[in-house]
């Protein structure tokens, strides 16, 4: 569903991402691990078409994101580290607003169902976003993916700053989506969650994808050892 083909990005002579290839299939949750500046966000931004690759291709549903930006955008939802919504609209209104931008129109009950499915408590649906916690806003992001019927989820450290319970709830939602066949690419620092939730792990260092493995190949302790080995 998601494929990087010799994807690379150079900023003023500095290689932020060296030629990298990987694939995320339907139902996969591919976790990118690595220190700050390792190229995780660059990779995600390349798939979002926020920046153009210097070389190689980023494909979503076998389509090049640069050549067919509108078609590929239709397939994906993006949740950044801190999902910013309109503070003076309610959760429901924000969901309607951003779904409307993607030309997704549903009756109100459907939208409420998406919010409930994303785990947002019912009494918060009509409250303004300004009263929401970060975890609640991330849930609206998930509802947005549900409303868009997204097949690809691009996440940039979505659980950083969430308390363990909220973080756990978020991971459960990701698992739920992956069971529906959604391909997820997530940048994260959380080794524990990556092992628990992810199906695949990629480790990055200085723009290189230095390791790719499936989570069932490794246990928590070995994962941490491997990570530290690559980082040093």
């Amino acid at each position, binding site marked *: 569903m998601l494929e990087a083909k010799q994807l690379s990005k150079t900023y003023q002579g500095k290689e932020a991402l060296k030629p990298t290839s990987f694939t995320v299939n339907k139902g996969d949750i591919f976790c990118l691990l690595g220190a700050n500046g390792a190229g995780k966000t660059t990779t995600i931004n390349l798939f979002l078409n926020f920046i153009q690759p210097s070389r190689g291709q980023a494909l979503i549903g076998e389509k090049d994101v640069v050549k067919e930006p*509108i078609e590929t955008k239709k397939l994906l939802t993006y949740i950044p580290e801190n999902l910013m919504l309109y503070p003076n609209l309610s959760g429901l209104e924000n969901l309607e607003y951003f779904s409307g931008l993607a030309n997704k129109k549903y009756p109100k009950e459907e939208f409420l169902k998406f919010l409930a499915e994303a785990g947002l408590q019912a009494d918060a649906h009509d409250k303004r976003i300004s009263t929401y916690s970060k975890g609640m806003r991330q849930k609206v992001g998930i509802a947005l993916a549900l409303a868009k019927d997204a097949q690809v989820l691009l996440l940039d450290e979505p659980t950083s700053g969430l308390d363990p319970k909220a973080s756990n709830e978020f991971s459960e939602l990701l698992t739920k989506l992956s069971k529906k066949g959604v391909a997820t690419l997530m940048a994260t620092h959380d080794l524990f969650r990556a092992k628990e939730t992810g199906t695949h792990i990629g480790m990055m260092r200085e723009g290189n994808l230095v390791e790719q493995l499936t989570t069932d190949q490794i246990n928590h302790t070995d994962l941490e050892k491997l990570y530290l080995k690559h980082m040093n």
Partner: protein
Amino acid sequence: MYVLIAKQFIRSKVVQLSLLLLLALGIMSVLIGKQFLQKQERTLANVTQHQQAHIARNVELHREIGLLLYYLRFTLIDKPDRIAGLSIGQRDVNPSVQSVTIRTLEAQLHDTDLNNPSNLQSGNLDLGFVIIYLFPLVVIAFLFNLLSEEKEAGTWRLIAVQSNSTLRFLWMKLSVRILLTYCMLGGILLLAYLILSLPVNRQLIAFILVAILYTTFWFAFCFWVVSFQRNSSFNALTLLSAWLILAVLLPASVNNYVANLYPVPESLAAMVKQRERYHEKWDMDKKITMDKFYTHYPQFKKYGVPQETFNWTWYYAMQQMGDDESLKERMAMRAKIKQRENASRWLATVIPTMHTQLLFNDIARTSLSSHLQLLDQTIEFHERLRLYFYPKIFENAPVKSEDWKKFKPEYTRAENNINITFALLPLFLLTFGLASWGVFNFRKTNDA
């Protein structure tokens, strides 16, 4: 989608406050217009009454028609239209009523009403002012962060991912703001229509068209600035500076420039000459005065050169000389004023604020050119009175032989024949040019 965008926009406190403020000022401006119209109406009612009483009293007092006409004033009125309440223009300084005796005209032509000078200095807060100066500020407040607020609040990335065309999204945001501003404009105009009981005619339609196009110009201008995609504070500062330049600096500069380009020393010269040429005649041989007078009006030659020390024919001939012998200077002065007016108008075509102000005044018949027309009509009116009364004075007709009741104030109307299409063209071209440039800027970066 539009409903949600509108909701998101209107829930902002700044937006609510600026709309409320604009509405309050709009209503105030309409009430000021109403006050102006009421004052004018009172004046006109008084003038009519006063002229009747004034003539009746003097007719009782004076036995000689020559002496009577020394005192009698006749009134010419250019009644301001109701729409003058929307754009008072120069009607506050330049009177709508001209009251003249048949003596030397030039000295009477420039008499004005008494006005509170501090009110004149600050100008009138009429609806024209609200539209020209305050609406742009609201447009700026609505648009300066059209795009930058999304970028600064972090919602832009989500918008970029969700929407197929960010340009279309911006257009939706923009149209909600434009619509709201037009609603505000429409609401205030509707209030003005009701409060001032404006007749629906070409003037009103032209006023509305100009108001809409002028507001649209500001939308295009703000959109153009926004299209360079700088941050909010840069946009706000740029737009406010532009407002200051367009609304204050340029009109003041043009005024200064034109005043310096065409100085009018003739105004003093005309005044001095008009007085001198009348007064010197007292010490001159009557024949000199009478010869000149008969050259001007050969039809009165039969009244000859008077031999007595004082004679009304001679007196009015002397008065006439005040006008006749200052003609060159007076014409020069008028020509200069017209030159100033034309230069200002020409420069204003590229300064939308000034252009719109001139258009509003033209439409409401409150401009300088309307007043100049009234002066021309007063000259005609005065001449008509002279020609009517001269033979009666020269023949010393008995006062009672005249039906004085028939001298009621006369009404005239200075028509402004403005070609509205042509007048709107500069505004339209500027608006269209800026909007296209803005769209081009966005197209260029939207691909990235």
